């Protein structure tokens, strides 16, 4: 299958969706959004791209590239919980830091944000893996 229009669109859609997903991820603390929704958006972008350019090397390359994301996501999510313990509070305790950056100004970094980023990565990893494996037209066994 060689859908030129879809391929043209998919290049744009992938970039737009990933940028949008990052935006949704970071506004998630106080407004609608968050790691899960962001992860779904980004994963959707990647899946659309793979569907448009479907071939085996691309599919397995995407799978391989995204494989560490699940583990990284879990580590971040678990780590954000453990950070609370390390600072002498209970598990999953929210900690906040203010960081001064040049150009941007002061931003808040918090353990809920780290947790959300972890969820974001885990959702991308799992969702893309599930869809691509189901899509693959090779025998599994």
């Amino acid at each position: 299958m060689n859908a030129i229009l879809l391929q043209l669109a998919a290049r744009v859609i992938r970039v737009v969706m990933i940028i949008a997903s990052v935006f949704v991820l970071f506004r998630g603390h106080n407004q609608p959004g968050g790691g899960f929704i962001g992860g779904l958006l980004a994963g959707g972008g990647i899946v659309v791209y793979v569907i448009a350019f479907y071939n085996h090397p691309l599919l397995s390359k995407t799978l391989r590239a995204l494989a560490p994301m699940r583990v990284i996501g879990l580590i971040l999510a678990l780590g954000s919980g453990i950070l609370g313990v390390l600072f002498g509070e209970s598990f999953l305790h929210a900690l906040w830091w203010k960081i001064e950056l040049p150009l941007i100004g002061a931003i808040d970094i918090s353990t809920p944000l780290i947790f959300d980023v972890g969820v974001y990565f885990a959702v991308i990893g799992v969702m893309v893996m599930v869809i691509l494996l189901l899509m693959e037209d090779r025998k599994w066994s």
Partner: protein
Amino acid sequence: MIVFAPIIIPLLFIILSLSLNKASNAAQRIVFMAGNIITIGVGVTILATVLSEGMIVAQAGAWEAPYGITLVADTFSGIMLTLTSLTVGVVSLYSLAWKEDNLNTSVFYALIFGLQMGMNGAFVAGDLFNLYVWFEVMLISSFVLISYGSGKVQLKGTLKYVTMNLVSSFFFVAGIAVLYGEVGTLNMADLAYRVREMGSELNIFAPSALILMGFAVKSAIFPFYFWLPDSYHTPPLPVSALFSGTLTKVGVYSMIRFFSLIHVEGDVFYNQLFLFVASATMISGVLMATSQFEVRRLLSFHIVSQIGYMILGLGLFTKLALTGAVFYIIGHCVVKTNLFLLSGIGYKYTGTFDLKKSGGLIKKSPFVAILFFISAMALVGIPPLSGFFGKFMLIKAGIESKEFIHVASALAVSFLTLFSMIKIWNEAYAKDLPQSVLENGFKWGRPSNQLIVSSVILVVVTLGLTVGSKFIIDVCSTAADQLLDIDGYVKTVLKK
């Protein structure tokens, strides 16, 4: 703080096993066993802490009790944590030597830890919705484990298992939803508090019935047990053994926990219902077991029948009955797992699970025969083995509460269990190999020593339950006390 450990440690090891998928087999095995040993250690530590200092309560993220996620460990949770982590540990050791069905992969190890995380979470959850989430963690791991490997029969069993458990989950969530609408809280302590404060104004009948449905399917009680014997004999044997020992116990645990907390003095309906269900479960399970000749199916029907005893304890709801039920859960978990492990060892010898085609094990390996004999007699409840104490306490409590019909059915079921165990003994151990099998060029297999060692560990635990029965019964009666002391639970968790 320690209450979080049973959840964090398995999660940590899930991450470890998944990230080690390229590492050497030996490294993976070491991580796997290390994770199991640490989890057992955590379980024992929690049990010891609870016994010496009383209930442990922890709030995730320091959100105070009715609002945040509360984790509570009391003696019953401590017992269950220790028990299941021990069982999972032994089965893990066994699965490493099973050498069939492609069990030694990092995914399998991660799944076992996932199962353990779900069970441990369910044992320490102090919040109904949290309990549901841990149930799902456990279920999804168990879904993948039960479809691990892939024969036609197995897929069929998997479908039954998955569909039934999903439907039960929906019942459970629907119950939670209605309960939240009615009472306005899901924290179990707050729930108990509000039900006691304004019991007559609240209509918790419908939500409790829905939640009971959810638990009933998961713990396989009458009349929702039919999925269990149809699916438990299909996966690889170590998985069957693991499920038979632990999964239904989680359902029973949640049932005892939930219904003891919302128990209203003088409300006979639930007690009568539980008593009826208990008897029906025991009798129907054991009757169907008698006609089976596939050893795993036979043992699966016995799981159903013995869940009845545990529910009997909940139905009688006296201190002695709950003590008996908790003791019975301990004994049953160890013994049932071991019977499955032994049937696997028998399979390694004869190459079949069919009782009609096997035999002669007593001559081939008297040692394994002894192991089986001890476990089987412990299951039946021949004194002084572990099943006896639990059944004795339950029956005594039944006589004290004048529930003679249910006592009679419990006794009758014991005899039928003895019949089944003698059937396995006769068919697999005592009789010689049938002529038809010998003619087909039969060859004895040889199980590796590690398989037998894992079974020996569980037999030693069974005997330990006899030797240390006084201590164990004390622990169980502390657990029963805490289960009955609802005010104490509410005070400790809510601090009011």
